């Protein structure tokens, strides 16, 4: 155990209940003190605020710019109204309307998620789908005839027997519950994954996390929340119209979220309520001018303060985003997981036969044969452009097209995604340290364990369980003193060490390291060399190391492989390779092999 546990209560465990209780009181007395018009408008605004929260989680936290929440909202509203209009308005039918209003968007959310997110999909593409979806839904509503009321929408169906004030309180109550749930979620361990995906999705998948599946589930859940908002809206307003499903409404949600402050939960709520309420009041007098001002403000905000009003407020009030008083993360070593299949350790962990990779007519790799067994530390050397990094990519990403046999632990990895290959026991450290800049050191390490220990959706852990080997790296490199620091504050060497600790925390059987010592000082190199030696010799992990520093290679390797112009020219012990004339000629730029 390092770092004594501090038991200071985090800010939100005190402030959040107080804030929620205050909001509940306001919602309860609202209808008494406000006039009819204000109650009516604010009911709608609070329902819109629920939508703004969903947009904020998707866009502000996970980095998925979406215009599609409007469509899920509209589907929920239409499902409610269609059941009430065409099926029946008994309490049982109302309940059916509620179930359909939530379940239909969730199912469609799965479909939209499947369309939007797959290995190597781009953020732009997801936004495109989120744009197409509401357009399609709107057109379907238009061509729905009597069922959807076409362009005039549905009106005159039976709504819940609540007065104006009752709907106000219901909407307010739902808003508070959803806001609190959203707040708890984004502060939880699972919520940190959202930020990790936004920061560095590649690293997430190389930590064995199936980010596509996570994003699809997230889309489906938030579609359900939007459908719930649609249900409330259909009952509170008594009318649903095609505009409720449209992409223009979807962009408005994004505008509110952006102005309020993305990634803050509270900001978008206030943004949605504030702008919708103001526009209802002002649009009578100066309709176009008002939208003009909102539009102009939006443009300026995006360019100058992408954090929105929330960022402005926190800057003025001088509230740090990362209160350091909470420092209380503990490292706890855990025993390595039982190594199933360790028995056949004498077999090759990785086996490559006749591997070839080309870009057009340019052959980057040709006829590579290589196999590595447990406990070996194989160094891959060769001049720049020899194909070393490409070889690493070929064995860690099966979706990369290449010819020949690629096997990890006896299984072909062709067409497997990086996260699948991590699950087979391969960890990869990139040449440029690939970590999560918006997270703390402890959170980064926790991400590395997430594929093994499923994260909590409710709680933010105060401890950090790491396998002993990873814990040792954390301690040796002094990262244990920095667990609560933001990664963006770390030095280059510290980031390299952090990434190594993260990869080792995966408990891989095979580690791929692309120039782990580049840009490090001599003591740092020696330390990393020592760590690698003990991983391979004591724990039986296999390692493939791309390295330029021949002295370093000579010290730690058990075998050296030389690549030159895409071909494997030499594979032998340290002595054989270092004394070979071939290597000297390759490195001095002499004749071709």
């Amino acid at each position: 155990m390092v770092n004594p546990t501090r038991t200071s209560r985090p800010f939100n465990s005190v402030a959040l209940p107080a804030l929620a209780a205050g909001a509940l009181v306001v919602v309860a007395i609202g209808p008494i003190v406000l006039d009819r018009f204000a109650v009516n408008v604010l009911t709608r605004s609070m329902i819109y605020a629920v939508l703004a929260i969903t947009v904020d989680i998707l866009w502000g936290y996970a980095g998925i710019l979406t215009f599609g929440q409007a469509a899920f909202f509209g589907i929920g509203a239409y499902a409610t109204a269609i059941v009430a209009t065409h099926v029946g308005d008994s309490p049982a039918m109302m309940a059916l309307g509620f179930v359909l209003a939530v379940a239909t968007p969730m199912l469609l959310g799965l479909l939209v998620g499947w369309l939007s997110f797959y290995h190597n999909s781009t953020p732009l593409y997801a936004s495109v789908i989120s744009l197409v979806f509401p357009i399609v839904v709107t057109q379907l509503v238009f061509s729905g005839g009597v069922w959807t009321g076409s362009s005039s929408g549905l009106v005159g169906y039976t709504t819940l027997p609540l007065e104006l004030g009752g709907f106000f309180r219901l909407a307010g109550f739902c808003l508070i519950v959803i806001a609190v749930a959203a707040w708890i979620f984004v502060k939880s361990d699972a919520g940190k994954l959202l930020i990790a995906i936004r920061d560095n999705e590649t690293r997430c998948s190389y930590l064995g996390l199936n980010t596509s599946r996570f994003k699809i589930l997230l889309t489906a859940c938030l579609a359900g929340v939007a459908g719930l908002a649609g249900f409330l809206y259909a009952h509170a307003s008594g009318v649903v119209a095609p505009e409720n499903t449209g992409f223009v409404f979807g962009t408005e949600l994004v505008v509110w979220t952006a102005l309020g402050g993305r990634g803050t939960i509270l900001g978008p709520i206030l943004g949605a309520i504030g702008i919708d309420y103001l526009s209802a009041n002002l649009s009578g007098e100066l309709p176009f001018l008002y939208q003009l001002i909102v539009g102009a403000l939006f443009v300026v905000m995006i360019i100058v303060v992408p954090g929105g009003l929330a960022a402005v407020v926190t800057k003025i009030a001088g509230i740090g985003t990362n209160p350091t008083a909470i420092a209380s993360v503990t490292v706890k070593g855990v025993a390595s997981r039982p190594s199933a299949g360790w028995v056949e350790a004498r077999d090759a962990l990785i086996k490559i036969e006749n591997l070839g990779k080309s870009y057009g007519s340019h052959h980057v790799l040709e006829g590579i044969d290589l196999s590595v067994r447990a406990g070996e530390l194989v160094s891959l050397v060769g001049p720049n452009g020899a194909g070393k990094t490409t070889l690493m990519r070929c064995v860690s990403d099966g979706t990369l097209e290449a010819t020949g046999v690629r096997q990890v632990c006896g299984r072909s990895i062709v067409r497997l995604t990086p996260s699948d290959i991590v699950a087979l026991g391969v960890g990869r450290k990139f040449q440029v340290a690939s970590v999560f800049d918006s997270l703390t050191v402890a959170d980064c390490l926790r991400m590395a364990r997430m594929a093994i220990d499923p994260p909590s959706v409710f709680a933010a852990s105060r401890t950090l369980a790491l396998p002993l080997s990873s814990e040792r790296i954390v301690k040796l490199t002094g990262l244990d003193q920095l667990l609560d620091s933001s990664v963006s504050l770390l030095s280059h060497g510290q980031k390299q060490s952090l990434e190594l600790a993260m990869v080792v925390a995966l408990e891989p059987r095979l580690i791929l390291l692309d120039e782990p010592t580049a840009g490090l000082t001599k003591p740092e190199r020696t330390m990393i060399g020592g760590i690698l030696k003990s991983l391979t010799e004591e724990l039986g992990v296999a390692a493939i190391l791309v390295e330029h520093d021949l002295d370093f290679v000579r010290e730690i390797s058990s075998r050296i492989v030389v690549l030159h112009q895409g071909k494997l020219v030499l594979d032998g012990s340290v002595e054989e390779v270092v004394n070979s004339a071939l290597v000297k000629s390759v490195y001095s730029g002499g004749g071709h092999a």
Partner: protein
Amino acid sequence: MTLLLDIATTAAVLFIVASGLLAIFGVLKIINFAHGAWLTVGAYCSVLIAHWGLNPWLSLPFAFLVGAALGALTERLIVKPLYRRPLDAILATWGLGIVIGQLITLWFGRDVQMTPNLMSGTVGFLGVDYSAYRLFAVVAALAVGIGFTFLLDGTRLGLSARAVIMNESLARALGIDTGNVRLLTFVIGTGLAGLAGALLTPLTSVDPNMGVAWLIGAFMLVMVAGSSFGALAVACLLFGGAQVLVSTFLNPVLGGVTIAVLCALVLRLNPKGFARG
């Protein structure tokens, strides 16, 4: 036969509308969501020309110039700070579109405007009587396409633009002023959008929100086409054709989403769209 002409002319109109967006996306890798607004601006240029009693054909160069001038301002003030944040650039240009739409509304009112026809009546073409103006649209699309081919392959700007498309940092290292290439491309793109708006006026009604309807179709076609004008032409023919077929034989309302849905599916199955390499 009429159906084939419908397909050809629909594709031509789509090509004209989308080409400005493609030019900007290809070089700047930015989706210009104000594109719809520039179309609207172009259309209102025709309204102004008609209002002043000038020859309607003058509206084409006028719309191009107005679009280009406003585009230059936009690039410097709004797009330039956001090159590194492409998703935010979508939002900022969308916001700009709102602003322009509202300004036009304040100026001209919400009502649909009428413009004089550039070319009226029908001509006999291969045995059918067909709208002369729609046939002219095909000529205009060919002119735009040939113009771009010449610009890309025959001029210094085109060479620089192609360099920026392929590898921007290398282009900059070789001494190409990528900032200027971006500015010029943006200006040409918005100018073309204005021109397209003016060309659209005889085919659609002119109102402050007319651009939005065109934006989505054009945007999806550009996503599929990547940065190649050839691919854009193919995409316009294929998806424009599909739109005409669905509208004619199934349902005009569904025809309106044909392009968007087909493009989204094509992109899901082949993320590179029609672009090669």
